[in-house]
C-alpha cells in the first residue's frame, strides 16, 4: 500500500507548519500555503519568523502558552483560538494556531479557518441576534407594564375624591336608606383602594426582585409582634365567617431576630396566606399558625381545614393570575406576591397537603449569623 508523503498531506490541509527554533523564533517547514503568501509574505519568502511580535502580536502572545505546552511534553494540541490577520490588500483571514509536540519537535500549526469559521460565526451571530431580540422584547414589555401601572396609580386620585365626598355625606344627617347607600359606596371604594394598593405593591416588589440590588443590611424582625399585628388585623374577618384563628405565640420566639426581610412585607405575606386560608375554610373550622425552627431556618406554617388544593392546580399555585379551587381567589396575585418576596429574601415558599383534609402553606426564612451588638436596636415600626 502506498503511504502518502507527509508534506503533501500538510499542503493538502492548507496548513503552515513551523518548528520552534528558539524563544520567539519559528522556522517554516515545507512549502508555504497560498494564504501565508498573502498574510505574511516575508515569512513565506524567507521561511523564518524571527520577530513574531512584529509579524503578529496575537501569535506572539500565544507563543507564551505554546512554550509552556511544548515544555510540558504533552501530546495533545494547545489551541490559540481564532484571530484575524489583514493582508496587504485589506482582505481578512481568520486563523488559528495549535502547538503540538511531534516526535520531540516543538511544532506550531497555523491554519486558515475559512468556511468553517464563517459557519461558526453565523451560528454565533444568530444566537446573539436572538438574544438581542429577546432583550428588546423584555424591555418593551417592561415599558408597557410601567405605563399600565401608572394608569392604575392614577385611578387612585378620582377614587379618593369620591371617597372624600362620600365621607362628607356620611357625616351629614341622612335618611337611613340613603346612609346605607353611602356606606355601601364607601365600602366598595375601600375595597377598590385595597385592590389598587395590592397591584401596585405586587408590581413594585416584582421590579425590586428582578432589577433591585440589596445591600444586605436588614433591620431584623420581631416575628412575634409582627404576627400578632397581622392576626389582630384579620381577626374580625375570621370572626365574621366563624373561623377560629389559632397560634402558639411562644413558638415565634421573642425580640428582634436576625432575619432577611422587613416586618411590613412579612405582614403582607402572612396576611395573604391567612386571607387565602380563610377563603377556603368552612364555617366552624380552624386556621392555625405554627412556627418551627432549626439551626438554619425558621419555618412559618399556615394550616387550614378546607378542601385542599386539587392536584392539577398545585404546580401553578404561586404563578401570577392563578386562582384556587372554584375561583375563590381575588385576582390571583397574592401567592405570586408572597413567592417573589420570599425568594428575594433568600427563603422558600411552598404548599403541602395535610393528612386528612386541608392545606398547609409554608414559608421558610434563612437565619442570618449573629453579629456582635454595637448599639441598641431602634423601636419596632408598626404598621397602622
Amino acid at each position, binding site marked *: 500500500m502506498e503511504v502518502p508523503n507527509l508534506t503533501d498531506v500538510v499542503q493538502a490541509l492548507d496548513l503552515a507548519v513551523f518548528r520552534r527554533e528558539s524563544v520567539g523564533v519559528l522556522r517554516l517547514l515545507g512549502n508555504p500555503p497560498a494564504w501565508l503568501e498573502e498574510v505574511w509574505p516575508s515569512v513565506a519568502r524567507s521561511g523564518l519568523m524571527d520577530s513574531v511580535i512584529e509579524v*503578529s*502580536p*496575537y501569535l506572539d*502572545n500565544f507563543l*507564551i*502558552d505554546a512554550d509552556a505546552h511544548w515544555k510540558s511534553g504533552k501530546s495533545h494540541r494547545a489551541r490559540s*483560538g*481564532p*484571530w*484575524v490577520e489583514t493582508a496587504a490588500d485589506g482582505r*481578512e483571514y*481568520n486563523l*488559528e494556531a495549535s502547538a503540538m509536540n511531534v516526535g520531540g519537535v516543538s511544532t506550531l500549526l497555523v491554519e486558515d479557518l475559512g468556511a468553517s*469559521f464563517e459557519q*461558526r*460565526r453565523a451560528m*454565533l*451571530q444568530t*444566537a*446573539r*441576534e436572538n*438574544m*438581542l431580540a429577546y*432583550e428588546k422584547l423584555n424591555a418593551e414589555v417592561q415599558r408597557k407594564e410601567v405605563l399600565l401601572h401608572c394608569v392604575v396609580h392614577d385611578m387612585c386620585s378620582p377614587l379618593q375624591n369620591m371617597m372624600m365626598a362620600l365621607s362628607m355625606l356620611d357625616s351629614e344627617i341622612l335618611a337611613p336608606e340613603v346612609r346605607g347607600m353611602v356606606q355601601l359606596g364607601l365600602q366598595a371604594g375601600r375595597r377598590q383602594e385595597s385592590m389598587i394598593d395590592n397591584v401596585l405593591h405586587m408590581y413594585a416588589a416584582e421590579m425590586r426582585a428582578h432589577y433591585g440590588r440589596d445591600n444586605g443590611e436588614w433591620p431584623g424582625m420581631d416575628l412575634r409582634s409582627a404576627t400578632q399585628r397581622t392576626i389582630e388585623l384579620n381577626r374580625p374577618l375570621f370572626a365574621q365567617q366563624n373561623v377560629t384563628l389559632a397560634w402558639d405565640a411562644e413558638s415565634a420566639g421573642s425580640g428582634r431576630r436576625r432575619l432577611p426581610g422587613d416586618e411590613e412585607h412579612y405582614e403582607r405575606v402572612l396576611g395573604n396566606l391567612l386571607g387565602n386560608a380563610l377563603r377556603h375554610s368552612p364555617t366552624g373550622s380552624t386556621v392555625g399558625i405554627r412556627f418551627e425552627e432549626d439551626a438554619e431556618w425558621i419555618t412559618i406554617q399556615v394550616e387550614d381545614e378546607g378542601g385542599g388544593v386539587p392536584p392539577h392546580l398545585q404546580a401553578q399555585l404561586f404563578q401570577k393570575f392563578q386562582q384556587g379551587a372554584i375561583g375563590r381567589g381575588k385576582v390571583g396575585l397574592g401567592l405570586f406576591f408572597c413567592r417573589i418576596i420570599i425568594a428575594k429574601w433568600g427563603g422558600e415558599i411552598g404548599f403541602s397537603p395535610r393528612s386528612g383534609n386541608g392545606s398547609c402553606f409554608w414559608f421558610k426564612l434563612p437565619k442570618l449569623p449573629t453579629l456582635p451588638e454595637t448599639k441598641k436596636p431602634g423601636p419596632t415600626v408598626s404598621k397602622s
Partner: protein
Amino acid sequence: MLTKKICLLGSFSVGKTSLVARFVQSVFSEEYLTTVGVKVDKKIVLSGDQEMMLMIWDLAGDDDFQRMNLNFLRGSAGIIYVADGTRPASVDAVLDLRDRVRTNLGDLPSVLALNKADLVDAWQIDEARLAQLQDGGWSARKTSAKDGSNVEETFSELASRMLSK
C-alpha cells in the same frame, strides 16, 4: 517609539469593533457582524509630547456563548470597557468584567465608553446612573461610533492615563 497594548472589553453587540473602526479607519457600518476571536489594530497617537503606538486588541464580546480568555489580556497597559447605553444589562456586564480583570491583573488604567449615544430615544443610562458610575471610580463618557462623538477623546484619555501611571 513607545508601544502600549490596550484591550476593548464588553458584552456582545455593544460596539467594540465599531469604536475601533471609527478610531483607526474613521469608518462606521450599520451592519452588526459579531466578532469571533480577536483582531489587533494599530494606531499612533500623540499624548502631550509623547508619541505612542497603540496596539488595540478588539476581543469578542463576553457572554454565555463565548467566555473571555484572560490570557488575551497579558501585557495590557490599559482597558477600554464598552457598554451599550441602550442596554443597562451591558453596564452590569462591564462591572463584572472589571472585577474579573482586577482579580487576575490588578488595577489597570481604564475608561468606560457608554456607546450608541446617537440612539437618543432608546438611551437608558440617566445622569444619576452616570454619576453613580463616576462615583464608583469609573472614567465614563457617552460615545458614538456612528457619529464619532467622544471616540478620539476616549482613546486619548486612556493614553494619558497609561502615561501618567
